[in-house]
């Protein structure tokens, strides 16, 4: 999308995406025929401002010709003078606004589209591609949607923003905050494309974002909240603290540190219900799609009539209204100052690059005075530091619903390097004794180990049913289902399993627990797979390695600490 730069009667410099509208605008004296990117328009306005902070246009002090100044700026960007011509504007008054009123039916339809457009774009930050998709959804023309957007900009309820903007000597993507962009020479000047958020559509310095500054909700409303569960004692305490935090005007962020499998999400539901009733919008965000897929049905069940927007992956979802949104990382980038309350689930479990974009997205999706609650089983060191410095409130949820302590990992020192070449180690007998307690889940640090270990275990225990999987395994979901059914004696895996997968009676072994891929978070999560059901509330976790790493030590300390706190608060039975 591009814009035309206008010189107005009052001496100001304006812009419009529609040449034909300029021709009808009596305020415009002349305009530049070359279509410009919004980044360029903004840069010109800024530079003119800098050259004359007192606004000489209005006062007519300066004899400098604004046209000349603007051309000079554009030449500085690499433009050729021959590409830049001015056109004097002499609006023909015959095409008054009244002529639009003629066709009533068409007018009626326009009103419908306008209403829908405004309902679906509140609090959003949309690219041209998004707007085009919205046009299709509303069965409208791209041009008409652009006009509605421009109208809102003129009314002050939205702004245009260059999608990638020159900042200092470089660039910054205004959608995701990335500064490392792919630069290329465009026809007239240097341009840049952001690669970091390309999965939700291109973001370039020639493109523009439509930023709507209105809140998602217009005010308090009736909200039906029917929880299908009862909070445990531990959850009730945490839930009350979350509620206090959400209502407290002084606190901006808080950290909910929960034991694995303690049910941290439900703890937030009562606060979410309160917020929605108050007319405050709520976002549940998570870096991984499986987390969203796990939370969505539970929210839907407990908020039976509430329109829930679920935005995951990179697929384009239908635009929807309403004050409660569930979204994965990149989808958060489509909102602008939209939410009063953000529940951010397992931010630090974010396994991929791009967490910078997530941080940027969260910060900008939050309304002024809004609140973020981080939910985690494995807090980051930055998070804990912020708590220590008093910048962030800490809320604890140390116990599971069945009032049994978390299984503490045991370390089995291996004298030899662990490799799948015949099961000679003494720990083979330990795997055997684990199997007596329940099926065994064996974590390995690399995909190439899965097959050899399956074969090796199979050789040692010919009667066992053994299989394995990794995250990109095409048969993964069917294997996980069989694992859940208890069909395997031993299952080899590289990654902690998807959220929401509960394995009754499972026992855990981590091979080469000192491998660098296993940080304290991964270790706590893997150990956290054990003892999650009421029927099998206990079990064993075995770390196998030649060395004890700081990560292993931290993992054990965290788990022991949760148990100690739970004991102190009387949340577990000894």
């Amino acid at each position, binding site marked *: *999308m*591009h814009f035309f730069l206008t010189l107005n009667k009052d001496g100001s410099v304006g812009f419009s995406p529609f040449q034909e509208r300029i021709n009808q605008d009596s305020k415009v004296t002349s305009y530049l025929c*070359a*279509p*410009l*990117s919004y980044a360029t328009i903004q840069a010109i306005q800024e530079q003119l401002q800098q050259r004359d902070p007192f606004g000489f246009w209005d006062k007519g002090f300066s004899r400098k010709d604004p046209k000349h100044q603007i051309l000079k700026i554009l030449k500085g960007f*690499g433009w050729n003078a021959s590409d830049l011509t001015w056109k004097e504007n002499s609006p023909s008054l015959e095409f008054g606004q009244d002529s639009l009123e003629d066709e009533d039916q068409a007018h009626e339809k326009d009103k419908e589209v306008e209403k829908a457009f405004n309902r679906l774009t509140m609090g959003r930050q949309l690219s041209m591609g998004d707007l085009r998709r919205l046009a299709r959804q509303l069965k409208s023309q791209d041009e008409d949607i652009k006009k509605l957007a421009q109208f809102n900009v003129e009314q002050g309820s939205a702004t245009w923003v260059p999608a990638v903007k020159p900042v200092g000597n470089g660039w910054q993507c205004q959608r995701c905050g990335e500064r490392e962009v*792919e630069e*290329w*020479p*465009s*026809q*007239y000047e*240097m*341009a840049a*494309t952001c690669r970091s958020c*390309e999965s939700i*559509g*291109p973001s*370039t310095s*020639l*493109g523009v974002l439509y930023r709507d500054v209105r809140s998602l909700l217009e005010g308090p409303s009736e909200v039906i909240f029917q929880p299908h569960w009862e909070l445990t004692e531990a959850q009730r305490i945490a839930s009350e603290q979350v509620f206090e935090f959400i209502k407290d005007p002084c606190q901006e962020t808080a950290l909910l540190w929960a034991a694995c499998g303690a049910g941290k999400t439900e703890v937030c539901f009562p606060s979410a219900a309160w917020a929605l009733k108050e007319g405050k919008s709520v976002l549940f965000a998570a870096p991984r799609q499986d987390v969203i897929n796990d939370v969505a049905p539970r929210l839907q069940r407990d908020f039976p009539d509430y329109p829930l927007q679920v935005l995951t992956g990179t697929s384009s979802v239908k635009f929807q209204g309403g004050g409660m949104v569930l979204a994965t990382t990149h989808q958060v980038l489509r909102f602008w100052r939209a939410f009063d309350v953000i529940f951010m689930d397992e931010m630090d479990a974010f396994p991929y690059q791009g967490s910078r974009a997530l941080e940027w997205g969260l910060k900008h999706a939050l309304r002024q005075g809004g609140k973020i609650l981080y939910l985690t089983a494995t807090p980051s060191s930055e998070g804990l530091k912020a708590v220590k410095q008093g910048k962030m409130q800490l809320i604890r949820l140390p116990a599971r619903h069945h009032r049994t302590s978390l299984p503490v990992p045991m370390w089995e020192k291996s004298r030899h390097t662990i490799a799948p070449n015949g099961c000679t180690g003494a720990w083979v007998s330990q795997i055997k004794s684990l199997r007596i307690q329940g099926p065994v889940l064996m974590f390995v640090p690399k995909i190439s180990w899965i097959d050899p270990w399956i074969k090796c275990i199979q050789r040692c225990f010919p009667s066992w049913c053994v299989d394995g999987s990794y995250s990109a395994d095409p048969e993964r979901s069917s294997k996980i289902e069989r694992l859940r059914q208890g069909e395997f004696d031993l299952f080899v895996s590289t990654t902690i399993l998807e959220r929401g997968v509960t394995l009754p009676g499972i026992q855990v072994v981590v091979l080469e627990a000192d491998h660098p891929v296993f940080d304290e978070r991964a270790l706590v999560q893997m150990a956290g797979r054990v003892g999650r059901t009421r029927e099998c509330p206990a079990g064993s976790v075995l770390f196998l390695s030649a060395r004890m790493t700081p990560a292993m030590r931290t993992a054990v300390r965290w788990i022991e600490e949760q148990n100690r706190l739970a004991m102190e608060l009387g949340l577990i039975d000894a």
Partner: protein
Amino acid sequence: MKEFWKGAVKLAQTLWYEELQTCVICGDEGDLVCPTCTTDYLHPELGRCRSCGKLLLNEKTNCLDCEAGRGPKHLDQVTAWGHYSGGLRDLIQNVKFEARPRRLKEIARPFTNWAISQLPAVDGVMAVPMHASRLAERGFNQAEVLASAIHWELGLPIIEGVERSEATPPQMLLSRYDRLHNLKGAFIVREPRSIIGRTVWLVDDVTTTGATLEAVAEVLRSSGAKAIYGLCLAAGMEKILVPLGD
């Protein structure tokens, strides 16, 4: 503008030979264009229709459409680097619709090598022009980026002087008949002096019926161009006609 590209290309050239080589089409490690992509999309073993550039599955020199006189008439020869499908189509769409013109620079060398092996030497290279409003929206003309890549690889001068006078609907969305008539009057020669008596490679990203190349070739011819060769990244493939009966 051209200077910018030169600088950018130089930078890219010095960078990419030090880095790990990956296939420019699919991204796998190894060759500049990996054997799989060569087999799947480039089909160097197949002939190209001399009139429209289409990939041919038999030993003929022209496709059926062109044999029947329904193809371009003002071009001396047309060739396409590969088949407009799969990874090559993804590459071209990524360049155009996700603003990644730099990816075209990465294929400069193999594309130029193909051109040299297929087409006679010429005085210069010319890009199929793009209309100003589309250019403003996209920021670059992919055909121009390709032409400047060839210019950089071979030192061939870039010939300008033709303009696109109106924005026509994208050729892809039209029927064959409309494609051939959509472009009447779309191109105008601004500087006949740069064209008279010259031989050129006329470059575009994709050709399906050859209509765009033909429309430009027509005005070049009437301005006195001596020989015009069409060169594209990708073209369609002639459908195999299954003989009826026995």
